[in-house]
Structure formats: structure tokens, C-alpha cells
């Protein structure tokens, strides 16, 4: 009996330990839960990447994404509530153009964006490159911007030119970084971080939204960046006709199908750089044989220092390409016909050309008129009308 009663105590002890462990686990949650934001679920799309680019210190939440959407669309982000001095992300990144300015933009003729006018730049300073679209960014681990300057590998902090101290959170590592950079850059928002923070915190609606998203009402640049980055990550594009064709929910027309087969053939060969996967980008960088002389200061070479990257830029996603003219980092092509003509017969050899531009010595892939039409028909099947009309990505109706 001695043994069993000892055992009994042991059992009780074990149960007690279990209870303590479990209760302490459960006990914390209900109290904290009240102020916890709700985790944001990205749609689970078959075939899409599983590995998401979400920093550990900025998990996506419903409240964070919503706050981010407000800031993305609030012109007071530039630090002023005067109608002439308002600017924000959406001033340039327009939803109906897959978040580019668009070639028919009334404020930016030809799609060439500029920062807010100031004493130094009365016309507004030109943005060095033409735009990139904003969707499926959460699936990209290979650097943001045309040259991939913003990436995990970038160790730089702060910016002397913008008077931003070399300390966290002023890094160049992820989408969060684009927010503070953009506010300061004279060729973008042309604002001032401090003024921007003070402006946002003075608007009654915001401190409670910060509280819901981050636990306390404090407004600071770190939280503003995190919220906008969460909103950017929530923008996903997976409902083009091509996507629905892959899911067997739609059929491609004869011309679209011929274009599809060309796109994925070695004769026309677009897939090696723009992706055989459904993102329609590899997020890799190439010199695609546009020029023979290179003197642009923001190509891939400035990031890697590898001579092979001279004149190389990101091969952007071709989803929604119909909406994002003009094309290339320097906007040299006004429409898709010009782009297709270029790949067909406009290639220029240089020692930096990427070997995947394998027809460079023939000047291009030599498409017939019919083939050009077909290829274009396929490119037009890559437009995701649902994304560009999705109210979840639109301007909140109560913003000025």
C-alpha cells in the first residue's frame, strides 16, 4: 500500500502540474484577447507561394490592414491638411491602374510622377523611374523596387541626404521601409516624418485606430509604416482570366490560347524571365537588351556591384499589364504593341545582355503580325478586374 499511496500523490502532483501549465496558458489569453487585434488571413490560392514575406515583428491583422488602407489613401500623410499640399501613396498608386499612375493620369501626364512642389522644386521633383504596380508583394522575397534595393540583405540604416538618423526603424529591408523613404524623398511625397506623424496623430479618428491595431493609441513612424505595409501585403491578384483558366473556371479564346502557347514556347520565350508560375514574374533581374550604353544610376548594378547587372532591372509581373503603361523602368514604350515589337525585332546587343535574351543577335524573336496579335491577346487575359475594383483595396469613403 505504501507504493500505491505514493503513486497517488505522484499522480495528483502530475495532474496539478498539468493544470497549472494549461491554466496559465489559457488564463493569459482571455484577458489579453480583449485588446488583441484579429489575425488577417490571406486567401489560400492553389499554386501560389507558401513562403510569405511577412516580418516576424509585423504580423498582419484586420485592424492593422484597415489602418494601413486609411493612411495609404490619406493625403494628410504629407504633413499638411491644406488641399494643395496633400499627397499620399494613392496620389501615384491608383487602384484602377493596378496601383500605378497610368499613362492618362491628369496630375502626372504620360504617367511620369513627381513629388510635391516645394521652394526647391517648384514643379515637383521627377521620380527617377516610372512606376511599379502594387500586388502580390507578399510573395516576393527577392527585393523591392526596379533594382531590388529594398531587401533583407540591405544593412544600411537612415539617410544622410534626407536627414534621417542611422537607426531603427529607418532600414531598407522590407515594405515597411518604403513608407518612411517615400514620405521623405523629394521625388515622392516630399514631406517630413515628424510633421507627418504630428499631422496623423492630430486627426481624431487615428489614435483609436492605432490602439485597435497596436494596443495603445500612440502614433509613430514605426507603426505607420507597419500598418501601410500590412495593407500592401493584403493586395493579392489571382482572378485574371488566365488564373481562372488555370483553375478551369474559364476558357481562353483561340487567339488567347495561341498567344499563351507562344508565351510559353522557346520561340517567343517570355516565361524564362516573367515566370512559368502564376505570379507571372520570377522577381529576378535581367538586362533585356534595350540599349548598348548604360549610365543610369539606379540599375541592379548599384545594388550588387556585379558587372553582369549593368543595365539590369526587375522583370515585373505581367499580370494587369494592360493597365500599367507606359512600360519599362524608363517608360520608353507607350503601349503593348511597342513592347511586343521591341521583343520581336528591336533588341540591341551589348556585352551586358543576359543570355536568356537568346535571339539578341537576330535583333529579336521575329514574330509575324498574327503572332504579335495573339501574344497581345494573351497579355490582355492577364488583367484582374476583380482586384482593381475590390472595395477592400479602395479609398475609404469618409476620407477627404
Amino acid at each position, binding site marked *: 500500500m505504501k507504493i500505491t499511496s505514493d503513486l497517488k500523490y*505522484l499522480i495528483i502532483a502530475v495532474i496539478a502540474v498539468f493544470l497549472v501549465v494549461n491554466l496559465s496558458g489559457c488564463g493569459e489569453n482571455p484577458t489579453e484577447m480583449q485588446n488583441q487585434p484579429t489575425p488577417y488571413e490571406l486567401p489560400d490560392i492553389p499554386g501560389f507561394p507558401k513562403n510569405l514575406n511577412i516580418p516576424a515583428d509585423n504580423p498582419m491583422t484586420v485592424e492593422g490592414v484597415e489602418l494601413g488602407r486609411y493612411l495609404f489613401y490619406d493625403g494628410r500623410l504629407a504633413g499638411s491638411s491644406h488641399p494643395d499640399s496633400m499627397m499620399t501613396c494613392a496620389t501615384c498608386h491608383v487602384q484602377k491602374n493596378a496601383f500605378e499612375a497610368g499613362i492618362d493620369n491628369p496630375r502626372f501626364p504620360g504617367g511620369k510622377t513627381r513629388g510635391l512642389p516645394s521652394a526647391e522644386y517648384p514643379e515637383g521633383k521627377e521620380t527617377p523611374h516610372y512606376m511599379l504596380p502594387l500586388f502580390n508583394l507578399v510573395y516576393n522575397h527577392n527585393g523591392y523596387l526596379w533594382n531590388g534595393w529594398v531587401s533583407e540583405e540591405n544593412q544600411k540604416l537612415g539617410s544622410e541626404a534626407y536627414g534621417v538618423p542611422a537607426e531603427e526603424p529607418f532600414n531598407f529591408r522590407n515594405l515597411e521601409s518604403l513608407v518612411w523613404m517615400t514620405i521623405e524623398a523629394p521625388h515622392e511625397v516630399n514631406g517630413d516624418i515628424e510633421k507627418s506623424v504630428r499631422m496623423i496623430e492630430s486627426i481624431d479618428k487615428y489614435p483609436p485606430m492605432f490602439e485597435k491595431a497596436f494596443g495603445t493609441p500612440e502614433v509613430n513612424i514605426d507603426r505607420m509604416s507597419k500598418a501601410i505595409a500590412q495593407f500592401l501585403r493584403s493586395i493579392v491578384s489571382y482572378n485574371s482570366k488566365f488564373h481562372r483558366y488555370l483553375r478551369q473556371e474559364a476558357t481562353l479564346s483561340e487567339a488567347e490560347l495561341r498567344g499563351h502557347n507562344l508565351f510559353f514556347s522557346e520561340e517567343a520565350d517570355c516565361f524564362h524571365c516573367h515566370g*512559368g508560375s502564376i505570379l507571372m514574374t520570377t522577381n529576378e533581374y535581367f538586362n533585356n537588351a534595350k540599349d548598348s550604353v548604360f549610365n543610369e544610376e539606379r540599375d541592379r548594378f548599384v545594388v550588387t556591384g556585379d558587372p553582369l547587372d549593368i543595365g539590369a532591372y526587375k522583370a515585373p509581373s505581367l499580370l494587369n499589364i494592360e493597365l500599367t503603361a507606359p512600360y519599362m523602368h524608363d517608360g520608353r514604350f507607350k503601349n503593348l504593341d511597342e513592347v511586343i515589337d521591341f521583343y520581336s525585332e528591336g533588341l540591341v546587343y551589348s556585352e551586358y545582355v543576359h543570355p536568356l535574351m*537568346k535571339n539578341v543577335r537576330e535583333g529579336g524573336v521575329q514574330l509575324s503580325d498574327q503572332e504579335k496579335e495573339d501574344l497581345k491577346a494573351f497579355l490582355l487575359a492577364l488583367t484582374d478586374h476583380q482586384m482593381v475594383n475590390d472595395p477592400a483595396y479602395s479609398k475609404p469613403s469618409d476620407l477627404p
Partner: protein
Amino acid sequence: MRQLLSKHTLIFLLVPILALVSSCDPEESKPAPGSLEINFNHLENNDEVVFDEMRYHNAAGNNYEITEIQWFISDLYLITGDGERVALSEEDFAHYIDTNIESTLTWQLPDDIPAGNYAGLAFTFGLKGEKNLQGYFTDAPEANMAWPITLGGQNGGYHYMKLNGFWMNEQQQRTPFNFHLGVGKVEDAGTTNFVQNWFEYIVSSPITVRSNRTTSIELAMNVEEWFQNPNIYDHNVHGAMIMQNQEAMAAGVENGANGGFSVVSISEKNENNQ
């Protein structure tokens, strides 16, 4: 009541204890396993490839340079002295190697490797079976190896290799070539056939794996071998692209299967961190 409780108590305690003891027992009677790491090298005539320089000559007399090599190895086995195969890497069975991505040049196998002496290893160049179905890899960089359905039949799959570079063509122009291997498509009198093109490669080489040690194997791709034996592969004949040219891919595959790989060295790391 007290009796009852105690009996149950005993049973409750004994079952997990027995389970624990019995599961520990067989492990203890065997020597502890070791582990295996493969380091990939790319050689031209036994020397490490120097990229982006027009410095190589193939058997056909072409001058050429290499920009990048991206390829898959899969289904690795160790072969014992009796010719028995020990299957490895059940979980991580395909590994992607990219000369642009330093971290891919080392493959730490997840398996516990039974300690012992082995006579060699076998692996598949490329991917076969379910691994070579479209959508198997969802993430970059592997997903960027996709081989279009239009070229590879119902299943599409992946490039087994992209070897990209330049050669001096007959006009002495530096011209790109894409030596890409994957599923070949053959149209024959109205019917379409698909040729898989992967091959198994066996390297004989004494390999010792010791308990709690990591054996490190330097596995080299001998790049010149793709172009020389038994088929003289001439870039002036096959041109820049061969994904839709099974004849050219078959010549390359036959060459690669014949001397394309070798074990350069085997060493042992002192600490096994697992």
C-alpha cells in the same frame, strides 16, 4: 476506493513507461547514426568554373563562356558494399543548385545516416515522378525552374538544368546559348510522345559515415562532359535553344550521363550538431 484508484494509477503509469522503454530499446542496440552533407562544385577540366569569361573550348571547337548553372538533384541513395541501397532524404528529396545562390551549393541532408562503410552513391539528375509535376514547387527559386506544359505534355514539370552562357558563333559573334534540359516532346506521324530525359548517375567511391559525425562529400559537375562524349555537341549546329529539340537534348543527356559528375573529395566534420 483507494484500491481501485491505485490499480488504475498503476496502469496509467505503466503504459507510457513501457512504451517509452520499448521505443528506446532498439535504438540503443545500434550505433548512433551520422549525417551527410553534400557540397556542389562546378568544374571545367578539373578546375573550378570561372564564370563570365570566354575561356573554354569544347570538343566541337566552340569557344564559350558560362554565365550560370541551375539544376536539380533528387532521389539520393548510398550504396553498400553488397550493392544494397540506403534511401536518403525522404523529406527533402530534391535539392536545387544555383551558382548565383551561395547557400544552394551546400545540401545538408535531413536524414540520420546509418553509420558504416559505403561503396558509393546514386542520384537522379533532374526530377522524376510526382516531383516533376507542375505545381510541385510553389516557391522561388525552385518554382522559377518551371518547364511549360506546352513543351512538356500534360505534366509540364521543371527544368532539370539551365546552363546559360555565350559562344563565339561562325561569324565570331559572342552569342547567347541556353542549354536547358527537361521533358522532351517528339511529334511522330501525328502522335506526340514525351521523353523524360532524367537519368540516374552512380558514383563509386568509398564513403565512411561515423556515429555522431558529419561526412562531407564534394560532388562535382564536370561541365565540359555535357558537350563531348559520346556525342560531340556543337553550338553552331544546335544553336541558342534546345527545349523543343529532343535530338539535341538527348545528345546532351547521353553525354552528361557519361562522366558528367564525380566525387572530388570526402571529409569528416568533427562536430555533429544534431
